[in-house]
């Protein structure tokens, strides 16, 4: 399983992935130098190792919970982002602050995924004339 690479490319990731989360693991990054690999490549083994030791986030729960929930919501592209962030953080900087930042990101995505599910009429409306419909912020204006 070590070094399993996920080949999928999700357009949603391209806009969301920042330079810090595209830094994935390889031999050179183990010495602390992040290397830039093609986007959407995930080292699943790195996530496995992370899940063994990552503390639970007060907002988002444990990493296992987060991944399960995100996959269930079909937020695959976003999971890629989180997983890449985890893989990068595992190699580049494993400080507690970094872990909590990543856990917080996952929690935010989960909340967004839940909000999307609750707002099917607005969020999943077709794009007309190249303009996206306005989407209310999660928890606002849809009571």
């Amino acid at each position: 399983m070590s070094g399993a690479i996920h080949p999928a490319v999700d357009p949603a990731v391209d806009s969301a992935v920042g330079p810090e989360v595209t830094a994935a693991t390889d031999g050179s990054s183990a010495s602390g130098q992040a290397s830039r690999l093609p986007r959407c490549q995930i080292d699943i083994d790195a996530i496995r190792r992370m899940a063994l030791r990552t503390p639970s986030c007060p907002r988002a729960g444990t990493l296992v919970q987060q991944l399960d929930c995100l996959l269930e919501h079909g937020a695959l592209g976003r999971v890629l982002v989180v997983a890449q962030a985890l893989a990068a953080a595992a190699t580049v900087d494993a400080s507690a602050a970094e872990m909590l930042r990543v856990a917080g990101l996952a929690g935010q995505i989960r909340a967004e995924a839940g909000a999307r599910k609750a707002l099917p009429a607005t969020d999943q409306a077709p794009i007309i004339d190249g303009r996206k419909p306005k989407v209310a912020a999660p928890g606002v204006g849809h009571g």
Partner: protein
Amino acid sequence: MSAAHRDQIDRSQAAVAGAAATGSADDSQALAAGQRMPRFGVALMDNEHDFNAGWACNSDGEPYYFTNPNQLDSDTVWVASVDWSEYQFRGRQIHNVRRMDYLRTPIHRVATDMGLRTDGPNGRLAVRELARVVQRAVSACARLYGWRDPASELKADLLYEDLRRSIIHPPRSRPHVLPALCAAFQGSSSPAWPHSYDDASLAVTLRYNRVHHAQRLLELPVPDEGWTVQLSAQELRLDSVLDPQRPSLVEATVEMGRSDPEIATLCAFGSSAGRRGALRRWISQPELAWLIEHADVQIQTAILSRSARYLPPSARLPSALCSDPLNALSISAGLVAESHFCALASETYNRKLRRKQVSTWAVWLRAYDRARCFALALAAIKKGFTPLSYGNGAVTVRLRKQHLPQLLEFAAEQDVSYPCFHPYFVEHGLVGVGQQIPA
């Protein structure tokens, strides 16, 4: 879930919609209501021996404390953490209560895998997360196996018993092979270590990723049903019974007298958890392959299969589950994979003969599973941990609490995916709440 999975969901939803469209509007509404996915929940008892009080939560609700089973919602199927005898005595009569190992792994162990504590007030948080995981797993089953009416499919005490109806059945074995198969079947291993008590020790269950483990085992060859050749004692040669092209069942005596006592105990030949099975006089080829490295095996006779073959695609994990590597990161998908494996690799009860039977597939799959788990247990014992049991893709080890960091490193090296170690470190004072485990 993956795009393929979602496609399949869409197809099954379209199929349900198409079926409903054939009736009148009222009929289709009634049909849709009847086919609704049952709601699942989890009830964590304060005392597993007493089905009375504890925390409960259904998959879309909030946790609440109950003091009587009658307070549990009647429209929810409850996975209750009650022990076997209490379940038989009280739980089994209730239409919407299922065993604590409904998903094969006991519910409190699923919590441990996820890094949740279930003791005392922690049950309030855990029960909510567990209910969602159970619901996801069962809903995924309904989609993956194309259940048109999930409520009527979910009747058994265990999910894998319901799944078995949706998976291709193993071929029936010839009557002359059945006793040998029964005597070669061993579901798990429980080494019989001398009793010891140490208040500074704890038990931790290391578990492989369920999807990967099941996928790996279901891709290995099994015998076809042509058990044709019986070798006499004069014809027996080790290479003939270990030829992977000709799977074999050997009748043999296992002697551990000259083996290392620790390894001999670890082999746990014929020593499994639960009720005692048939006398282990027969050994399957995969088991023989690792057993002869650690014990003297005196083979009396052997029967050979005509050839080996791979399981048909319909017996392997659903393609939607395996097509996307990310699915392996989902614990719900893992529980589905584990139930799928158990549906093929477990004993079945023959009502006519009034006894349990096993298929060739079950014997071989369990032997592969124990072989892999034995390798992990052997590695654990060399690192100073004591394996208490192994099988089903997991090894339970006992260790002193100050050795938790070494166990974590061992788990990371050995491709182990669960449990989440952080709660163990917090409970035993090795790190604070929310603090990262030092590398």
